[in-house]
């Protein structure tokens, strides 16, 4: 049996192991949300948040590019109104908009034959159709992380793209090493998804995380 941690718990866990994450703040009300947005800087993303909420995008529970405090208050009120009884206790997450033309996906997977693996791939909405991903068994070395980048087919996406600099390979490698350390340090973790891992000015930033843990 597994259960998923909430987004906020998931983000906090991966951040503790050194994954760069967006500066996400919790907020209980539209006014709190506006204050959080003022603190992190505009534009922001506002999401409904709660232990039982998954598939936020599919349910329309994510508002992106919210430009100012009034819009944040309005978005926050909308989202809170969309919560259902099944969602349990909910609040809001406010985070700065992380922008980049490229999205990666990274994570931890428990393979039935090989055990804990880390994964890196080309992310975004086409990630599953592309299937451009690389796996390594935990623990990995920095050389393994670098070789994972080499294994991806879409090498051109890792170079300079649309005015953005080349992907900082060492920074992506550090994310993989952090995930490997997390998998070793947290034996109950079954899987981790960093999706997307947005490449912002060449450096990866996790804007969402989903951690699945074993429950006995």
């Amino acid at each position, binding site marked *: 049996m597994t259960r998923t941690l909430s987004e906020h718990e998931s983000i906090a866990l991966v951040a503790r192991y050194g994954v760069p994450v967006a500066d996400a703040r919790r907020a209980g009300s539209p006014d709190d949300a506006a204050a959080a947005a003022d603190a992190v800087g505009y534009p922001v993303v506002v999401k409904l948040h709660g232990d039982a909420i998954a598939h936020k995008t599919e349910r329309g529970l994510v508002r992106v590019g919210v430009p100012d405090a009034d819009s944040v208050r309005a978005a926050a009120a909308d989202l809170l109104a969309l919560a259902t009884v099944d969602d349990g206790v909910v609040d809001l997450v406010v985070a700065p908009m992380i922008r980049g033309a490229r999205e990666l*996906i990274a994570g931890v997977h428990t393979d*039935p*034959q090989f055990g804990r693996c880390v994964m890196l791939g080309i992310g975004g909405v086409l990630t599953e159709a592309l*299937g451009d991903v690389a*796996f390594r068994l935990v623990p990995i070395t920095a050389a393994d992380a670098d070789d994972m980048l080499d294994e991806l087919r879409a090498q051109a996406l890792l170079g300079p793209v649309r005015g953005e600099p080349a992907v900082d390979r060492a920074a992506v490698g550090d994310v993989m090493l952090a995930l490997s350390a997390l998998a070793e340090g947290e034996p109950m973790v079954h899987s981790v998804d960093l999706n997307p891992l947005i490449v912002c000015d060449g450096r990866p930033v996790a804007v969402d995380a989903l951690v699945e843990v074993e429950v006995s």
Partner: protein
Amino acid sequence: MTDLSPLFDPKGVLVAGASTHPGKFGFVVLHNILSCGYRGKVFATNLEGESVLGVTTFRDAAELPDDSIDLVFVCTPAAANVELLRACAAKGAKAAFVTSAGYGETGEEGRQREQELAAVAAELGMILAGPNGQGVISTPSSLCAQIVAPYPPAGRIGIASQSGNFVSSFQNLARQSGVGVSRSVSVGNAAVLAVPDYFDYLAADPATSVTLAYVETVTDGRAFFERARATTARQPLVVLKGGTSDEGRHAAASHTGALASDEKVFAGMCRQAGITQAATVEEAYEAAATFATQPLPQGPNVVVITTAGGWGVVAADAIARTSLRLLPLPTDLRDEIDELLPPRWSRSNPVDLAGGETRDTIPLVIEKVASHPDVHAVLQLGIGIQSNEARMMRTGEYYPEHGLERIVGFHEAQDARYAHVAAEVSAATGKPILVATELAVSDPDNAGPAAVRDGGRVCYWSANRAVIALDHLWRYARFRRRISA
């Protein structure tokens, strides 16, 4: 680590269940052991005590002289084998290869018999290979304890395979290429010893310089990884993986899980462990044969030497698809070649000799190119063209008149010389020099490919296949560099 020498280098072999019927495995294996020149003593059992192929048989293993065998090759029915193992162990046997079927492959009852067999072998301290395997060969002992042909030439490739058919495929390719085998084993149902259990022995075996494995199912992934990594720290390990199961695709809550196919995880594990993963049987064999016969390249830079333009162009395209690099021709090297060839040569890489070659310039060009410090590997194309014409002349109605005998001899000596030079310069410079021509398949007796083969190296069927093999060598060289850093 289990010492598998009683299996691969036994002082004597008992064929249990020898048959007088030449269609039965119990006959075939005895035939193969005797006819391939096994150096140890050969014994056989047969229920009637009949003589088989001139070997006097015993009715019971208990009648064997003490300490006369290390290995029993088991062809008897599954139900008889527990007692057989006990009797052989009492006579000093240390290993059993069980070819008999009727075990785990037949269902629950067979699975229990297999477990019982494994337990008895463990109790007796006996090595158990199989059951339901095709056999074992070991060229240092001239041992062909196998229920099928062929017996490959001796060489430095060690084979462990989950499929007996692939053992045969690899051995057939050894015969075709001339690049031979040290040991090979078909693991059968792998009641005790699975494919990775042979890795440690082969990696430490002085007769083996590369391990070649065919794998379908991996039961303990971590153990496979650890053993593979211990092997690749010593010598190359080439793996052909067959089949992907759905096991890895569970109802995944995460995208990461949904993207984790068995194939992807296995491929990643291979890169991490420094395993050379091949996509096809010929790619696997050629990679292993190249590891066994060529030095590792110290860098990615390849120079293609060709006697005609088209071959070089396509070889350059093949290089572009790999981690190798078509080296822009260094100026000093270009100037050196300029002195050897008429001005119409390509003056770039691929080095297209454009018909400017003579008996002496090809060897000189190969030597100059391979000796240049920026060059890490050479691909030589176009060998055998003149000998191909020589074949037509020799078989035509005008031979040997009109000067044909002389020119045929000249052409063949020339092509053989190019092959010899490639091998000599490779040995002298410590750099891989690969020779490719489809004549290796279409006319294996052509003096060019024949001389490459006689020199102990692969004559590749195409530039593309040579490039793929060379890329595997360069990837492994990088892996070795990475782990020693």
